[in-house]
């Protein structure tokens, strides 16, 4: 296994280098210097600022510099738009906020989605199954933005009007520290993050349920299921014990594939709920052409993605004895 991991890491090095290269090239299509300058800048001023920002250096030097920073985990370069704040500080502040929304959403969606899928598979073809799938498709058909807007209105604003703000757990927007910092309290999760999690859960349940049901249905057609049933094993035990265990592989794949995107957060959610998570910061940086932030965030995301893919392969082998790592 360790040999496999090592080989995978080595094979992905050029992939990682390529991602960083492409992102850096794509960013430099537009000139980030002029928006930062005076209204009628002279060529000398433009050159001076370009030099200050390090953009006058050959591209190869800029690329190698970024790689050096990434490899040494040096994220001290300052944001161009948030003066005095380093990329590392921004990552440190924003990632927990994103995770406070995405991790519970992913976890709950996986658990609830699997449960619903199991029920649907158990009652396959019958009214229960059909009703569950209709709701799943309905859920998928509604735009994410609609969920957010309705969720904010019906989940926070209206109840607060009806029962009083102090009697309703959800805030319309905002964020609060959970463990560190001024006013930190785990209860802040309920006030500020729980509603976005519920909205995210509703959005993802439709997709997850349909996928997991399909996995269950395919698994239910396997020979071992037929054999078990023929030997007199109870349907409930066959589905909830034997079938679930074997269906875990595609489920794990789906969950693992989502992991890298956890830290980018749910961008729209963060914008509407005023939670300055990683997705929100990245969008702002893209709008403002804040190269250090974009490059730094992409470097972290790409690394996470590659590591997650490797972890998925390893987990596969651990869960399914038929799979060998090679």
């Amino acid at each position, binding site marked *: 296994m360790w040999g496999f991991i090592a080989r995978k890491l080595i094979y992905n090095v050029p992939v990682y280098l390529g991602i960083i290269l492409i992102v850096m090239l794509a960013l430099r299509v*537009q*000139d*980030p210097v*002029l*928006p*930062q*300058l*005076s*209204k*009628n*800048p002279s060529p*000398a*001023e433009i050159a*001076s*600022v370009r*030099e*200050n920002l390090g953009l006058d250096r050959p591209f190869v030097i800029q690329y190698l510099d970024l790689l050096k920073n990434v490899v040494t985990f040096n994220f001290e370069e*300052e944001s161009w*738009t*948030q*003066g*005095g*704040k380093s990329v590392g500080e921004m990552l440190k502040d924003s990632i927990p906020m994103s995770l406070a929304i995405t991790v519970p959403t992913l976890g709950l969606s996986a658990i609830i989605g699997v449960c619903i899928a199991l029920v649907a598979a158990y009652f396959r073809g019958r009214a229960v199954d059909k009703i569950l799938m209709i709701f799943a498709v309905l859920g998928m058909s509604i735009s994410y933005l609609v969920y957010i*807007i309705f969720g*904010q*209105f019906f989940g*926070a*604003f209206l109840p*607060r*009007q009806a029962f009083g*703000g*102090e009697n309703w757990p959800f805030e*319309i*927007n*905002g*964020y609060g520290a959970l463990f560190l*910092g*001024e006013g930190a309290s785990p209860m802040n999760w309920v006030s500020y993050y729980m509603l976005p999690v519920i909205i995210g859960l509703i959005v993802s349940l439709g997709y997850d349920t349909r996928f997991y049901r399909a996995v269950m249905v395919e698994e239910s057609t396997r020979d071992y299921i037929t054999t078990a049933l023929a030997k007199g094993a109870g349907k409930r035990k066959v589905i909830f014990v034997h079938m679930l265990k074997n269906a875990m592989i595609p489920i794990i794949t789906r969950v693992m594939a989502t992991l890298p995107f956890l830290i980018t957060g749910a961008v729209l959610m*963060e*914008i*509407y*709920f*005023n*939670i*300055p998570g990683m997705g*929100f*910061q990245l969008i*702002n940086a893209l*709008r*403002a*052409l804040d190269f250090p932030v974009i490059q730094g965030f992409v470097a972290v995301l790409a690394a996470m993605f590659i590591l997650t893919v490797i972890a998925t392969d390893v987990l596969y082998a651990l869960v399914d004895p038929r799979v060998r790592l090679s």
Partner: protein
Amino acid sequence: MITRTPSKRRNWLSFAGVGALVLVGALAAPANGEEKVIRIPMTTAGPGDLDPVQGSTTYENRVCSTFYETLLEYEYLVRPFKLRPLLLEEMPTVEQDGKLWKFKLRDDVYFHDAECFPGGKGRKMVSADVVYSWKRLADPEYTFENWWLVDELIKGFTEYKDAQSALVSSGAAFDYDVSVEGMRIINDREFEIELTEPNQQFAWKLAMFQFSIVPREAVEQFGTEFTRRPVGTGPFVVENKDAWVVGSGLTVVKNPNYREAFYPSEHMPEDVKAGLTEAAGQRLPMVDRIEFGFYVEAQPMWLKFKENSLDYTTVPQFGFEEAVSRRTKNLKRDWRAKKITMDKVPLLDFIFRSFNMEDERVGGYTEEAKALRRAFNLAMDWDEMNEALYFGMALAYDGPIPPGLDGHPDNEEHRVSNSTRGPNYEKAREELRTAGYKIGDDGKAIDFEPIRFYTSTGQESIRIVDLLQRNFETVGIQINPVFVDFPTLMDVTNRKNAPMFSFAWGSDYPDAENNLQLYYGPYESPGSNHSNYDNPEYDEMYEQLRTMPIGPERTVHIEKMRDILIEDAPFCGSLARTRVYLTHPWVKNFKPTETFYTYFKYLDVDMDHPARGE
């Protein structure tokens, strides 16, 4: 040897100290002892910088105006806008026809307490601080973001900047101790500024937040962190660097050492009825804390205002139908019943569609070229756009000078005699014929190749483009819209690649010069003259304008420049939006404006109002 205060005296001292504290507390706090807090939204992810030299947006202006101060400020209640001394003892003396400006600072201005000062106590502000603060505009470290405000303005300043930039490029440090010929310190309170030529806009600039005064010690000690740890002289302070959370909000608290300053008494007649004069003579600031909330999306801001968790708000587009009567353009009855007040604030806006005068098809100065551009103007229906997008509350006008400024056509229709503002489809067709197009039986130009029209992305832009296409289609003009994000739009216009594009300009100060400079030849792209308009006669008039004293002659001069632009038609214009503010009844002393933001110190709140939410 330790001496002990005799016990009786010690008791009296203790009582006196406690009594003093109680008295101060009683004076500062409202009757029920609660801190006065005002909660203000801003429709943005937030300011990018709290350093005045690096700030340029209206959002930076707003927050910086709470903790920084400038030499002059706008009279809060007086219209048309007028300046008054803020850090100065009196208005500056102007000599040599406006070339030499003499200043005398107040004697009671202190910087905020900060660890950069000995003992952490803020020291008195002196003339050297003013000179230092303005020299920072020339420092390449700050990307010359606001250099345009002083370029070629102060004698010797541009030379100083160039010399220092050369030094910095060679590896040396920027030297703030080198003197600038036109900045002369007389003593700690007096200094004079000599301009390169008389300049009437200089006074307005002295009220811009980029000219705020900062202490050298703070900049040097805090370095790049100074952008997050401002130290100024203003009525509020940023408590610590965690008080600002990007994307969420910024909190400022009352400066406990703010000098004696009082609510102004000069006002307009209508301010009496609005209750804006009751606080005259009261000590500033009136609240203990300001909580700025940043809202990228308007929905949460609107909902928080409706649940009384924000003290005032601007009305987002989707909120108009809910709160404002389309017929009367006033608040609906149920909103008035909650005692919410509505203020309509005309903005110093110049919203227009611009042509690239260097473009092969739409540019140029021949009669045919001008006729083509005038045809565009005549085919556009600004009134329809106003109704569709701005609830009919914006103001369509001729020329580039917004309402309220000299040179704005101040008649009922806001038109000039040579108006080319549409819709006038017959005249548009005439102009198209002059431009060389044949008009078919359907009234449309034949063989009109579409013109690329760049505009920013967003719902509003899509609706504008739909409207424009429909207007233009009436006479056969066709545009090919290209939707891009704002940085790309700026990039394309800076490279002179956009034949036609959508743009807007908000005046930096209430003087027509600020709008007319948009067409000054030397300011071509990537400068502010994105049209790349190049008219020597106009340029000469602009250079004269900069030095002309305020008066009827200057107004006539401005009007001539305006009429030249309307004749040459480098743009289709214009529109000025009206921002609608809604204010809850527990907020006092609020007279909204977007020309300046030094008014937060005047705002007061009734914390005991029963409807005020948390």
